[in-house]
């Protein structure tokens, strides 16, 4: 992978165009959109995107008013009608303009002009409690990007996510791809997280020889057909039970919430390109990590914490989520520190050597470079 992929803004723009704008991307957890007019606003590459619940339907649109390009929602999330704050133009569930105050006295749009006014909307796909969007006019089928069976367990797990969500954002000074190479590397925890999560979960780097040789061969030659190309894409997403927990910690609140599964295993899912969901409590609570690329060297890490659905309300539920965050922050800080150093050290005269245990990253690298060069248009 050329170093420019991690540092160069032109590469970043091209990546947005070739990759992100064509793939289904995670936008927000559905629990944040459960009441009418609830919305989430995120910057996705160069686009300012809002996902909003309009009369029960989830719509996604470019957050730019058709009048004078003012952002319609200014907060990162909240509950607010779909009305532009600048001149109060009101929009409906198809992004159409429902009302323009003073249309007859001031604007005087003809009916043809009026019919052309609307928001640029994007396709939405809901998967369990996860909302994905695609900014292409004719996007690929969701199941061409994700294998339904491979992500079945994630769908089921997300269906028990509780409505109380803790949301936070970390501003990181590294390219988003470093985060995913890090997440797909199961060797680093014993070194980087020896004092934190590695104590609870003994992550191991396992090498499946058959998979390894397939990956290397693909890395050398690429795919022959578009359907093979998409097959490889699907192979990058999946997950479920990852490693057994060394010792399963038990807390009072476990009794108040539903649990996904019954085994005391660390759960881990990856949805390509930039969604990671895990459970360090063996199914009682979950972290959603969404690495949103901001520029070549900057990434916003949006973190959501939820427990399983509450069986009954209990007064310390918010504190439980805060405690999760505090624990996770230690681990994240360890990863972020390393990735920021790696980012700083990347320079054109260096190159990266991947080890055998990182074979999945090799396959992704091949797929990524082929997509960036426009082979097998999606």
């Amino acid at each position, binding site marked *: 992978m050329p170093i420019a992929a991690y540092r160069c803004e032109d590469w970043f723009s091209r990546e947005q165009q070739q990759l992100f704008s064509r793939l289904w991307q995670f936008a927000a957890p559905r629990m944040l959109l459960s009441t009418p007019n609830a919305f989430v606003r995120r910057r996705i590459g*160069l*686009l*300012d995107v809002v996902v909003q619940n309009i009369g029960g339907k989830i719509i996604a649109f*470019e*957050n*730019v008013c*058709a*009048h*004078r*390009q*003012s*952002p319609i929602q*200014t907060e990162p999330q909240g509950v607010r009608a779909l009305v532009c*704050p*600048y*001149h*109060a133009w009101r929009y409906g569930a198809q992004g159409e303009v429902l009302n*323009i*105050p*003073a*249309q007859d*006295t*001031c*604007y*005087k*749009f003809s009916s043809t*002009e009026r019919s*052309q*006014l609307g*928001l*640029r909307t994007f396709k939405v796909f809901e998967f369990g409690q996860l909302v994905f969007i695609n900014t292409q006019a004719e996007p690929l089928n969701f199941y061409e990007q994700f294998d339904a069976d491979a992500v079945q367990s994630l769908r089921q797990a997300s269906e028990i996510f509780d409505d109380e969500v803790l949301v936070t954002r970390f501003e990181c000074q590294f390219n988003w791809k470093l985060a995913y190479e890090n997440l797909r590397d199961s060797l680093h925890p014993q070194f980087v997280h020896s004092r934190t999560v590695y104590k609870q979960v003994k992550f191991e780097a396992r090498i499946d020889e058959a998979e390894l040789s397939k990956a290397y061969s693909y890395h050398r030659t690429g795919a022959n057909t578009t359907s093979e190309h998409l097959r490889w894409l699907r192979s990058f997403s999946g997950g479920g039970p990852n490693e057994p927990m060394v010792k399963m910690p038990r807390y009072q609140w476990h009794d108040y919430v539903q649990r996904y599964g019954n085994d005391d295993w660390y759960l881990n899912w990856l949805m390509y390109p930039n969604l990671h969901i895990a459970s360090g409590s063996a199914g009682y609570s979950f972290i959603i990590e969404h690495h949103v690329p901001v520029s070549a060297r900057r990434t916003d890490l949006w973190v959501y914490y939820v427990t399983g659905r509450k069986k009954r309300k209990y007064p310390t539920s918010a504190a439980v989520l805060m405690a999760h965050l505090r624990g996770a922050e230690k681990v994240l800080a360890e990863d972020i520190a390393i990735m920021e150093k790696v980012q700083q050290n990347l320079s054109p005269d260096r190159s990266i050597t991947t080890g055998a245990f990182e074979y999945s990253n090799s396959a992704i690298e091949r797929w990524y470079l082929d997509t960036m060069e426009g082979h097998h248009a999606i």
Partner: protein
Amino acid sequence: MKPALEVGHYIQPEIFEQEQARLFGRLWIFACLRTAIAAENAFATRRIGGRLVLIQNSGGRIRAFENSCPHRLMPLQTAAFGQARMVCPYHGWVFDSMGKVKSIPKEQSLYAFSQEERDALCLREYAVETLGELVFVNLGENPISITEQFAPSLIERLEAISSHFSDVAVHTEIPVRYNWKLNFENVLDHQHVPYVHPRTFLPLMRSVSEDKARESEPSQYPTPSDLLIDQSWASTSPIKIEPWPWHAQVDRYGPEGTYHNHFLFPNVNFISVDGLVFLIQQFEPVSASETRVIFTLCAARSRVRMPALPAILRGHLKGEVEVLMEDVHYLESLQAALHAHSPAVHHGQYEHRLVGFGQAYLRWMEAVKPC
């Protein structure tokens, strides 16, 4: 209505550079109030069209020079306002009131200029026009007449209203993160007031009767004009403000209950609240996505001494800045979201002034000066 301008005009650095040369380098640009430099050797400094300009009150006249010593280009003054003879701080060169070099310390022993060289040493001078208390500068080599930019009736109005200005004013420069044109378009557009300024500005306009408010919208809007002279104009509207004792002590301009609004192409909005308070807002371009909003606010001239005048001016400025910050909140958000493929703008008929502004802007952005 389709807009005249495209998103590139609000985000490209090349467009910004072109504006500096072709618009700000060739039009009459507001520089300062005459009251702020109303004494011998009082001065103001500005950045216009990418150049540093020194506006100096010298020999009884207001003159504008390039703020750059002919020796080694050091600026003569760096403060925004002040009072000082024209002397370069670097090597002590002294200038006369017309900008010619009068004396140079140790001239013969250190410099030994030829007579020809010496005669040519002077500050580069720019054209100045004063409309009442408003001082304008034109950087162009063959500047257009100011009456080509501002109609005589508008000039008369500016002279009349500014004759009421108090001798002191309050001045501030607020850095904002959006293209200057967004703010000029914003002040040209009255429709946003009820939504962006519901608690600050709207109540002043609303307190007028509903009938009067409805009357103000015409049944038919004119088609946009791209002529330079049409881009600067004045209007009045009804307003009701709370009376304060100091109002009775000053020389109000115009009839009571009037809000005066003047637009001066390319980047000045000058308003007066009831002829008692006057505010000049200028949107100074800093880069494609940054602007300095320059506020100069004064009161009507007083018949008696007003020891509390600074507090009064400061109070009004605070209110005006509050209104501006409501706009800034949205405009900074808007600018941050602009990109090469942003969705298009759609103007309503009432925005004909914005379209005209864009059209005139485009004509002046061409290399050849429009006639």
